[in-house]
């Protein structure tokens, strides 16, 4: 087993562990806002590690660029969607004003 393959396997295993723990964490948490926190580990830690494993495991090509682009989209959209969902949840529970800051 070469060094690159070993590094890819380690990063892949780590990303799978983080994603699985986050998914089960979302199941275990009772409140919606508690569940909301488990989106971040998947999108911001698990997905980039997964992409890094894909990149390390292969040579550079247009397909690698497409994989990086796709993962970057997931990584960047995660916090935005988390904030949007949290805002709607807070509006429905009347924690913030319905016409709060946009």
């Amino acid at each position: 087993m070469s060094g690159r393959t070993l590094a890819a396997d380690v990063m892949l295993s780590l990303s799978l562990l983080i994603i699985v723990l986050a998914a089960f964490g979302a199941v275990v948490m009772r409140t919606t806002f508690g569940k909301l926190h488990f989106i971040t580990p998947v999108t911001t830690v698990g997905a980039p590690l997964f992409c890094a494993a894909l990149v390390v495991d292969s040579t550079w090509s247009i397909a690698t660029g497409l994989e990086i682009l796709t993962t970057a989209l997931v990584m960047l959209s995660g916090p935005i969607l988390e904030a949007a969902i949290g805002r709607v949840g807070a509006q429905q529970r009347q924690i913030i004003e319905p016409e709060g800051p946009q």
Partner: protein
Amino acid sequence: MTTWLAACIVLIALGLFPALWVGSRGDAVNRLVGVEIAGAVTVLVLLAFSRAMQQSIYLIVPLVLAVLTVTGTLVYTRLLGPRP
């Protein structure tokens, strides 16, 4: 079985199903959290599947799904928000 196919199976069994479970319980916002996690996990499943099959043409599917997950979730948050 390749490493990437095994990663696919692990993600579907231990990542996607719990997310779908969250997405089928509770109120609308709670379900939206599950849909968001399921979307992110599905993108990674499709990336791994493309690598496992060694078909780079399959990469267009996770790319489109990543874009649609963002827009879809934002539309849901807009619809679930207060009416003017």
